[in-house]
């Protein structure tokens, strides 16, 4: 697989402040990667460099093989900013039409209708942005990012303004994007969301990637829980490989075993361990 997004040795300094300090990251075609980190870790800066909104002090970034920020890279990607606004007087359909023109998309009304349907705004196509709730504007923002059939999406906090129903819509949308082969770099504070949908996570702290991999790879064994007659017994330090032996020992000792659970650290625990003191 070729990379939809690559970052090599990315450094960004704002005066004396180092926002990114040598970041290397790959997002493969069709892969959904979650970007985690505390406030000020450099997540949005990384996304903005990828979009060409911010210039890197050093290092390189590329989108679908083209230098980040170049016209080719911008043609291949979609972007939902963390803080964005559309003109209040324009309707949902007009916003998408404008972005179709800017993206030189030939999708026409069919593409606009499909995108509004995808984000659950089919009935609101003629509604003005100023008459929409924040959640609806957020979903319109996601539809806007998908104009022009991008191969790669930067989504910066796409669910920040959404209620649980809206978040579920976005999760389904992300799964739909994955099924279409669209790669996504998802920047979010919602660990549960990342855990549910992402193939891989990268944890950023103080401008550096401090942990990266599949959630299952990053997870550490925390023990094995076994339900027996007297209640639940916890074997701290044991892992999945130890479970058959533990059950056999208990049965041999005359215990009745009703259930076995292998305990692994959650993404939240992995995250807190990775970012350390920065988490607060």
């Amino acid at each position, binding site marked *: 697989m070729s990379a939809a997004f690559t970052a090599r040795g990315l450094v960004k300094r704002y005066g004396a402040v180092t926002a990114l300090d040598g970041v290397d990251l790959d997002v493969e075609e069709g892969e959904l990667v979650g970007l985690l980190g505390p406030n000020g870790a450099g997540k949005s800066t990384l996304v*903005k460099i990828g979009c*060409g909104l911010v210039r890197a002090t050093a290092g390189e970034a590329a989108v679908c093989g083209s230098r980040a920020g170049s016209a080719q890279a*911008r043609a291949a990607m979609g972007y939902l900013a963390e803080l*964005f*606004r559309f003109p209040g007087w324009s309707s949902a359909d007009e916003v998408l039409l404008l*972005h179709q023109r800017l*993206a030189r998309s030939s999708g026409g009304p069919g593409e606009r209708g499909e995108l509004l349907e995808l984000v659950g705004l089919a009935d609101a196509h003629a509604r003005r942005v100023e008459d929409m709730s924040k959640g609806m504007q957020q979903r319109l923002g996601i539809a806007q990012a998908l104009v022009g059939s991008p191969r790669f999406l930067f989504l910066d906090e796409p669910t920040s303004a959404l209620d649980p129903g809206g978040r579920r819509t976005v999760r389904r949308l992300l799964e739909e994007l994955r099924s279409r082969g669209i790669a996504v770099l998802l920047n979010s504070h919602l660990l549960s969301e990342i855990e549910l949908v992402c193939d891989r996570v990268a944890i950023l702290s103080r401008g550096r990637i401090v942990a990266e991999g599949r959630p299952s790879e990053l997870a550490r064994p925390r023990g094995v829980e076994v339900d027996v007659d007297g209640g639940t017994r916890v074997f701290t330090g044991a892992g999945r490989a130890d479970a058959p032996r533990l059950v056999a020992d208990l049965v041999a000792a005359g215990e009745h075993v009703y259930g076995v659970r292998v305990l692994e650290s959650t993404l939240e625990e992995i995250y807190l361990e990775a970012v350390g003191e920065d988490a607060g």
Partner: protein
Amino acid sequence: MLVLTAAFVGLYWLGANQAFDTVDEAQPPREAILAGIDTRTLTGATLFGLSMFGTLFLGAVLAAFLTLGVVRGDAERGLLQPLVVRPVGRGVLLLGRFAAAAAVCAVYVLAVFGANLWITWSAGGWRPDRIAEPALQLAGAVCVIAALSLLGSVFLSSTANGIAVFMVFGAGLVAGLLGQIGEVLDSDTLTRVAEISSWVLPFEALYQDGLVAITADTTGFTEFALQLGPFGGAQAAGPFLWPWTLAYLALVGGGAYAAFARKDL
């Protein structure tokens, strides 16, 4: 803007009719008759010159309003980022915003100029010696103001840029007044300062040259009497005014693009 314009044009209509009625009813001063001063031309040209200033001011307000937040202001509100990441690029976006603002401002200024021309003609039967030339110069002047505001928007927040644009506009006016004072006092230094300032801020040079054009064929004591009034600020700029204005727009536009291209959003 529409209310402001309607108020301005309405007041100009009232003022022009009152002024011409007064001139028609009153006996011209004996000195004016002896000197051969055409009081209708003096009244019409003075009124129309003032209306040109009003038109330029309203055009400047519109130009600033349309462009003061194009880059930093829109970026701070989150309007710019979704547009900039599209393949069209920053240069096209900036040029598009300038072209749109310049077109709106130019059409607006031409419309107000035309309305005032009609009012002056219908109230007193006077019309400027040149019509197209001062009209286009006013349109050019507001385009220059729009370009300066666009440049300012790259560096300044919307409020700060609005204030800066009107300070620059005021500086141009002060330069014109200095020139007027310099003419009266016969001060080469003041006249020179005013001349340089009007070229540094060519919207002022365009306005001054436009004032000259509306009484281009007026001669004798009437011309002299006009020089004593607001037309003291009128200065012929010569054949290099338009080439310089175009070069100035290119320089300001180039500067805005260079700064915008390097700006982190």
